[in-house]
């Protein structure tokens, strides 16, 4: 965090409007050609990411929506997967969406060359199903929660998120530790510095109060996270508990489909590799006298875990999309902390950190050698 530079700026009415104002100015000055920002759908019952060029439309943006219908990394990827393009685009997304975007970039699934990511201190998001019950009322609940930084109504993984202010994009809007009617604009990259300069923002202010507050909050959350994971572990540990935890899975693969880092076009578990002859299934059934058919639901969950837990950003999209209310995100966040911990890796922390299973360190070979002694 030490290299971060920032400025304290005045907030117009609220943070959302401040961000919108910055975007409008940036469009005016030609810093960006277009922006990606969440907006309310016409029916008013959800929020979607919209790529906007027209300045008059930007004012309808809702930079901090109460829910995360689509993980922002997916929005960024849809625009940049096939190349950098000619437009300079800024995306306003949450920290976990930013981290997923960075992971996707490491896999060549986003091209951030002409892209600027603007994130903000995140209070969490409401579970989609809660929001849908009464969008208007839940908008109020969210606004109230933001004021007090109260996470009780947020997604379970938001309640234990210790990275809700992690800065890994280009610019970050810090609200924690800022005095009334002010916020911090924090730059994390050359790109960020450059934009600030063009906007006439002098990144010379002291960030101590923000950093102190962020540290305090993330330490609190970290404790909560460890505690929650410990409790969860006792429920899912061991093969019986594991099978039980996923027993209601209907293999719809919604979790995988909404996962920002599950980018395979054809999932291994949708491929022919997992389809067998009828007689093979019967032989399997005969061994136990009965077998569940859907076969391999637990295998799918474990396989997915193996494939993506190193890159999991604990955003909670999977849990929201699970039609059988399996606490997928909580389980995956627990595993992710452990697998990422093994490599001292934090998914999406930095573009410069190579993906553990793709990068090779010499000393890792020795570890392997020693293990075989």
């Amino acid at each position, binding site marked *: 965090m030490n290299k971060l530079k920032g400025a304290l700026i005045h907030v117009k009415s609220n943070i959302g409007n401040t961000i919108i104002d910055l975007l409008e100015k940036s469009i005016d000055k030609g810093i960006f050609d277009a922006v990606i920002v969440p907006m309310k759908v016409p029916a008013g019952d959800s929020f979607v990411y919209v790529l906007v060029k027209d300045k008059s*439309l930007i004012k309808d943006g809702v930079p901090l929506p109460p829910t995360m219908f689509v993980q922002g990394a997916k929005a960024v990827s849809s*625009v940049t997967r096939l190349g950098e393009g000619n437009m300079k685009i800024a995306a306003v997304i949450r920290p976990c969406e930013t981290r997923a975007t960075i992971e996707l970039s490491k896999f060549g699934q986003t091209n951030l060359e002409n892209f600027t990511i603007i994130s903000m201190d995140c209070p969490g998001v409401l579970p989609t199903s809660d929001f849908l019950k009464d969008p208007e009322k839940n908008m109020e609940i969210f606004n109230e929660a933001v004021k007090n930084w109260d996470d009780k109504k947020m997604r379970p993984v938001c309640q234990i998120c210790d990275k809700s202010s992690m800065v890994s994009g280009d610019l970050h809007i810090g609200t924690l530790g800022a005095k009334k009617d002010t916020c911090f604009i924090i730059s994390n990259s050359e790109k960020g510095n450059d934009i600030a300069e063009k906007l006439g923002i002098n990144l010379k202010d002291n960030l101590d109060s923000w950093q102190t507050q962020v540290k305090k909050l993330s330490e609190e959350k970290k404790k909560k996270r460890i505690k929650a994971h410990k409790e969860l572990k006792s429920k899912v540990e061991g093969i019986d508990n594991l099978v039980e935890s996923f027993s209601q899975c209907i293999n719809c693969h919604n979790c995988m489909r909404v996962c920002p880092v599950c980018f395979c076009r054809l999932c291994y578990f949708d491929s022919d590799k997992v389809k067998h002859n009828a007689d093979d299934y019967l032989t399997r059934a005969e061994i136990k006298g009965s077998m569940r058919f859907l076969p391999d639901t637990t295998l799918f969950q474990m396989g997915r875990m193996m494939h993506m837990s190193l890159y999991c950003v604990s955003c909670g999209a999977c849990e929201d999309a699970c039609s059988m209310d399996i606490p997928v995100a909580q389980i995956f966040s627990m595993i992710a902390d452990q697998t990422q911990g093994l490599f001292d890796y934090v998914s999406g922390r930095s573009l410069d950190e190579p993906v553990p299973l793709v990068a090779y360190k010499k000393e890792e070979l020795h570890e392997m050698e020693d293990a075989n002694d």
Partner: protein
Amino acid sequence: MTKALRINESTEKGIIEFLKFLLEKGKVKAVFSLKKISDNGAVAYSLITDPDELKDAVPFYPLMPVNAGKLLSRFTLKEGTRKPVIAVLKPCELRGFVELLKREQGSLENLYIISSICCGVFPSKTEVDGNAEKNLSKYWDTVKKGEISPDIRSVCKACEEFIPYTADLTVDYLGNNDIDKKCLIYLNNKNGEDLAKDMKGDFSEKELDRKKIDKIKEKRLAEKKKLYDKIDSKMKGIDGLVNVFGRCIGCHGCSKVCPICYCKLCEFESPDSEYSPSNYETELRKRGGLKVPPGTIYYHLGRITHIGISCVACGQCNDVCPVEIPVADIFKKVGESIQKMFDYIPGKDLEEEIPLVTFKQEEFAEVEE
């Protein structure tokens, strides 16, 4: 007249007895049926080979965790089963399977089907909320009276296709007041008769009570009208489409669970549905702003074009939609209107070809006119 077997047990028990008989006599090597997986009402389809394991089987439990037609396709996709297997399916699951068979996505070889006059199933949420067991006694009461249970899926309430077309055996459920005492199974063909041979019970010739069936159909029809009116009021023109599908998150869960959507790689997940930065630039110049990822409504319109002719209105898509879009209600309505054009009932007859892949000379004349 159809041959029928009456077992002097409750219907629930009678079917288990019958399936046990089939396994023990070696008439089948496995039973494919719903089975309880916990005490809170959670069920899963299972392939049962040990007769003792049938104690937890709940063949006609009112839940459909997965459309079993899709599962039978998975079971027989590579090749048909060499050993005889009996599958317990709901009529719409059977119709789904038949549509898949027409698309060469499975095999009927050595597969027997037992189905029922269907009373509908609870939405999966009922299982998740732990309310399935609680709602059961109320459910069976309405079944006996031939009424519509208030707790079943919206598409089940509005379903007129509750009698299976191609099952070897049909269990008499809906509108049968005697289900607590007797188990009546219609033996629809020679397969059915062969399976039932030597089973303890009374054999007779029976006919479905058409009057009773018509009465139930009338009630379902009234429900259907209500359902369709509701959709009509919500979904008018492009604005209506945007209002209803606007919150779709593009997870494609509806296609993943659909018994008809069998493509390994959906068109809407293929490179054809990805756009280059220059596409976005062009589009932005025209519109000023666009939703990303794009193509939400396009996807639903595409899917209805692809599968509408064969949609069996099972309701699976409604159940898995994370943002509670009434996909199944809409697809049932639109699907039905497409099917009517071709006088086609999906899954009714394996020999009947899918209208969009066959060509009739007079259709050409219609287009000319």
